[in-house]
């Protein structure tokens, strides 16, 4: 099964355990014309990563049940076909060491909650443009 075969639109994987924020992200991304694949915990996210082929982008929460954002990012980067997928971390943890740790682990961008929906979408579009250009 591949994402390209299953979905006509570009795919964004959203890993978010907060139901309301997940709903908001799904709404915003769908409006922008993305196909959204949701996962609400680390275990579900790992299953998604193992099952589908590389999406256009991953939006990842840091604190998740079963496996945290760092572990999921490592899982993504360990898969050769997923290693170029832009990963945006969206989290409430705003300490310098968390940001440095995430960026050093290969996360493409780091957005702190509370976030601006318009800014988040601009970043998503920017990372997709960079990926397409590359």
């Amino acid at each position, binding site marked *: 099964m591949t994402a390209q075969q299953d979905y006509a639109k570009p795919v964004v994987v959203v890993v978010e355990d*907060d139901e*309301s*924020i997940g*709903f*908001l992200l799904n*709404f915003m991304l769908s409006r922008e014309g993305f196909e959204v694949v949701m996962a609400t915990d680390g275990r579900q996210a790992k299953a998604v990563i193992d099952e589908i082929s590389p999406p256009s982008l991953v939006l990842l929460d840091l604190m998740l049940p079963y496996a945290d954002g760092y572990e999921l990012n490592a899982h993504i980067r360990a898969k050769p076909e997923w290693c170029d997928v832009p990963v945006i971390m969206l989290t409430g943890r705003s300490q310098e060491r968390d940001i440095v740790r995430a960026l050093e682990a290969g996360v493409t961008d780091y957005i702190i*909650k*509370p*976030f*601006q*929906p*318009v*800014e988040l979408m601009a970043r998503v579009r920017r990372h997709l443009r960079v990926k397409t250009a590359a």
Partner: protein
Amino acid sequence: MEFATSSDPIVNLAFWTGIAVIFIIIFMVLYVIFLRYMLIREERRRKLFLDVWRPILIRSLESIPDVLPPVKKKDWPVLFNLWNHFHESLRGSAKDNLNEIARKAGMLPVAGSLLKKRKVKSRLAAITTLGLLREKTVWEEIKNSSVDEHPSVSLAAMRALIRIDEERAMPFIIPLISARTDWPPARVANILHEASPHVICVALADAILHSPEPHIPLLIRYFETIACDSSTVVLRQAIEKFPNAAVISACLHAFKSPDALDIVRKNLTHAAWHVRVQAVRALGRMGLVYDKYILINMLCDQQWWVRYRAAQALSSLPFISTVDLEKIRDEQADRYAKDILIQVIAEKKMV
């Protein structure tokens, strides 16, 4: 069943006790089933309400709908929690739209009435909402809640006051934060960060220099978490005004700029060992090449904690490598200095 009509009182008592126990068990089972049913019903109602209102709030981030569905009395707490959650997760213009929809849905008068309820949960939701709406008309009511004996209510009220009018809130809040020992310092610091740095810096600096002496160390700890341009000047003044060990210790912990190196070095010989601990730690954070020798001397302090922090400070200096540390260790004649360096080098290699 002959024993039921037995004339033996003990048999009779056992029989009726057994009957009573069976009835109690049946009643409890039925009560648990009833509670489960009510819970499921409540959860279903909540889900139906969220299915309607969550999309409304999300769409309102782009445009406010003309007509909103009515909210039943029972559903207000769910709407308050959902609205507060969105408001605290988002920034920028999205918040203006959420404020507009809250006013349109009639949340303001409901929040005002919830504020008067005795239930902590209702009061918390109301205070948070009114704070996020920056509603000035309920200033006095929220101010009264900030002295509530329940720490969650009083902290929520303090946050709401800062959100409504930070400059007006400061003269009232600063004495409270030093008096309320039941407030978790991490949460207080978090709330203080919501105020503009210049407002909180001025208010805390003033409080540090004019509050009663026992409150000063705690105020310095809060002051330390805020990035203030004048922090070294204020901390120097605090040490001059209150030259006791607790205040000096707190100031040494808070110093971040090399401008304070003279005062740090001066306190390396302080009589209180916890002051010497903070002095060596401060030297580790901002020490210069010359301070390496001072820290080496501190490895022979009579207090284990001072020796340990001195060794850690030495290893954290940017110009000292593990090889340098091993060389310093080999040069030590003092057994305690050597021991503490062995430990810190081992810890450094483990990381």
